């Protein structure tokens, strides 16, 4: 999910690709087949004369398929779709301002489900539950359970239509693993060992550039806080999604000042030794560029690497393997704050004694509808979101790197044809989809923080403390204390009970 790369390019998102080290998103090998318009069950030009204003971030990811599908939708229904884009860093704020001031310039917002709490609590978003139930074309049951339950749902009601599946995985170079006789990492200790082994070998690419053991986007105010959470989750959450990985469910104390998080910080910092020299100034755009240049043996990323690796000019084509985020044999005992060995009671979901907690970082771009829009506009807006989400369209879009859409439908994992058509080898497709499926099927998936002002908790407090830690400005104890104090202060400001209630609501599984 390519957006995050630009979370870093805060001030603007327009010339981003040129500035990033990422290779310009090449066109897919074959132009995507225009999807067969869904069999019109309604009379044509149903929405003639209606204008739907949509907002998302200035991609090209996400915005590109929205515009492209918007044109198709217009031809089919007569509705006009305007897609407004703003830099990612300003998106959260811009939408919130627009709603809160009653300007209501947007009917559709395509945003991170992480912000749902901030938008739903004040009552800005339309409840879509009934519309989804009444729409057979959307094939709701085909959408991964996790995305249905968590990304799209809040307090048991559906508010968003998923357009993208997001969680983090570890990618490794299959050729290097073979060459050095290494297994794909199962635990974070394995990850370190793998990175170290590659680093010591001092491998180079064909054009003589060094190959680094591990490349992780650690730049300040970019994606670093997601990366560190990806490492930490396996140590903190072991009882299933409902346990949550950020706060204690009783006291609402942050789970960031204990032996488990300390261990995660150690690992996170150690990977820096095996990374590029300027790793702490790299964002996802840079690490993806390094990956496709063949300069990394390991990386943590969203689903994008899989599709970027098969694009033209990639040196990692057919050498990119993916696995579920590594786990840990030791997890946090929340009563004592100690790191203890896994037991069947403590880690009921462990595989071979290893507790995996795949992290649904960011949550995947989803579309929602403004409650204040006119009823006929809401109808058109829902039809538009539904059209983008339907298998005929999305199954193609998720195989194209530049869309930024990653798979989220079960049929997208089961059916390899579209992936092979897009240029993946069968093995690579199986590998990639297998890792996604394993993550999605995990009952211990970690949901990203969705409480109000999570931007402040994560993007300012956590991110700032981690940046200082990586730069050697402070040690582990001071880092953990800073995070805990900062989070506690924000919680006090916003009201502990209120925040806890929302936190529980976001974790509530509706089966």
């Amino acid at each position, binding site marked *: 999910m390519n957006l995050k790369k630009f979370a870093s390019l805060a001030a603007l998102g327009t010339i981003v690709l040129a*500035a990033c080290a990422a290779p310009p998103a090449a066109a897919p090998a074959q132009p995507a087949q225009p999807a067969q318009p869904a069999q019109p069950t309604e009379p044509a030009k149903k929405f003639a004369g209606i204008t739907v204003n949509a907002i998302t971030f200035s991609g090209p990811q996400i915005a590109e398929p929205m515009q492209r599908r918007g044109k198709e939708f217009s031809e089919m229904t007569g509705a006009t779709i305007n897609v407004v884009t703003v830099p990612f860093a300003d998106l959260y704020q811009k939408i919130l301002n627009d709603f809160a001031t009653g300007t209501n310039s947007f009917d559709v917002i395509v945003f991170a489900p992480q912000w749902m709490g901030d938008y739903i609590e004040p009552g800005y978003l339309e409840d879509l539950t009934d519309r989804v139930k009444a729409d057979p074309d959307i094939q709701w049951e085909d959408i991964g359970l996790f995305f249905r339950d968590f990304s799209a749902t809040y307090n048991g009601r559906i508010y968003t239509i998923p357009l993208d599946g997001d969680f983090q995985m570890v990618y490794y170079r299959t050729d290097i693993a073979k060459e050095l006789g290494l297994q794909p990492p199962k635990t974070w200790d394995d990850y370190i060992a793998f990175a170290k082994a590659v680093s010591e070998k001092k491998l180079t690419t064909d054009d003589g550039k060094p190959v680094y053991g591990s490349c992780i986007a650690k730049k300040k105010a970019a994606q670093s806080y997601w990366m560190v959470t990806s490492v930490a989750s396996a140590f903190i959450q072991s009882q299933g999604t409902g346990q949550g990985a950020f706060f204690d469910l009783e006291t609402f104390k942050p789970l960031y000042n204990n032996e488990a998080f300390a261990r995660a910080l150690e690992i996170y910092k150690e990977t820096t030794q095996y990374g590029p020299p300027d790793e702490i100034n790299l964002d996802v755009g840079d690490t993806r560029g390094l990956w496709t240049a063949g300069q990394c043996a390991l990386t943590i990323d969203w689903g994008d690497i899989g599709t970027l690796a098969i694009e033209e000019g990639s040196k990692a084509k057919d050498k990119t393997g993916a696995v579920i985020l590594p786990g840990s044999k030791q997890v946090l005992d929340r009563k004592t704050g100690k790191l203890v060995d896994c037991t069947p009671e403590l880690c009921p979901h462990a595989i071979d004694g290893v507790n995996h907690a795949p992290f649904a970082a960011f949550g995947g771009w989803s579309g929602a509808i403004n409650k204040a829009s006119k009823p006929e506009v809401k109808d058109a807006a829902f039809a538009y979101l539904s059209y983008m989400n339907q298998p005929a369209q999305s199954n193609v879009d998720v195989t194209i790197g530049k869309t930024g859409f990653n798979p989220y439908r079960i049929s997208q994992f089961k059916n390899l044809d579209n992936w092979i058509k897009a240029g993946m080898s069968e093995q690579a497709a199986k590998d990639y989809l297998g890792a996604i499926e394993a993550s999605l099927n995990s009952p211990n998936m970690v949901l990203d923080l969705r409480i109000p002002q999570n931007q402040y908790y994560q993007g300012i407090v956590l991110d700032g403390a981690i940046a200082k830690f990586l730069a050697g*400005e402070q040690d582990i104890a001071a880092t953990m204390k800073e995070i805990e104090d900062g989070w506690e202060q924000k919680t006090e400001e916003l009201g502990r009970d209120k925040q806890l209630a929302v936190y529980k609501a976001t974790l509530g599984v509706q089966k």
Partner: protein
Amino acid sequence: MATITSSASLPATRVRASLGERIAPAAFLLPAVLVVLFVSIFPLILSLFLSLSRLRFEAGGLQVQFVALDNYRKLLFGSEQKVLFGTIATPSPIGWVVLGIVAFLMLASVYRAIREAQPGRAIVGRAIAAIVLIGLTYLIAASLLSPEGRPGTLVVTMLYVAVGITLQYLIGLGLALLCAQQLPGRRFFRVVFLLPMMITPVGVGYLFRMLADTNKGPLEPLWVALGMQDFAWSNNAWGARIAVMIGDIWQWTPFMFIVLLAAIEGQEVEPVEAAIVDGASNWDIFRHITLPAILPVSTTLILIRMIEAFKIIDLPNILTNGGPGTATETLTLYAYRIWRALDIGGSAAIAYLLLFLVTFFATLYVRTLRGRVSTA
């Protein structure tokens, strides 16, 4: 206006005229005053109010909670204190020396004001200036000039301003003196030197980001040739700060250059010619004729740049996002980051702090120079 025909109508006319005269200036000024009110005073007052409150989004819109000085408390004494002031530790010997010199000069100026029996207002003004300056110098000595200390956003901002403006002025002056001579291709150079100023700061940020990319950028071969491939400027606090300063200097030197060039070319020719006839050296001409001639322009120029430079954000934001750690973070960048995370009150409080800081420095600068420039 009625023409005056008889002495009897004189007084009446005079009264009418003077009423008109009294109202006219006010009437003509009113639109301008209103515009200023709307455009600058009103936002100032509103942001002051914002800096005293906390915003929350609740059902039905925006809830503004008045928290009095809490945002300022957080900044100066609370959780954000470390961000603003950095890590305070014992200054190094150099730090103590610098602090001693500044303290001595400031106390001496206050003492002199008292001895010369200046009006009370002037003495109080000097005393306040002395306290603030000694405080800021202590902050610099205890963070930037201390082995264990670490500068916060305040000191980093002042560092960019001081180093940036000094170098920009000196380089700009050097280039202006060169271009004021009868060189071949003068015009070409003038245009070339002006180019950086024409580029939007964000563009300059990306330009330097690519240039400074020692892994894939154009300077990579040079970097490798120097055996620096394992060194990354962005991991090093000073490396990152210097990268930001280089970009800033590159961007703003042209501004200094163009204004100084105009000033140099605008000076009177006769004294210079007379000096040449008298056999004065180039240095003498510069020192005694050119420099005094461009001094008034220079002071204004530096003042404008100083006010502008305090607000630096684009370059550190794009190059490093304020990293590594907090090494390159400026006040404005920090304010922008927390504003994005909806801490609008905290952000406004930082903006106000910056306003006080800039006003203080600008006032101090103008007062210090007022006497000297006119007598130079």
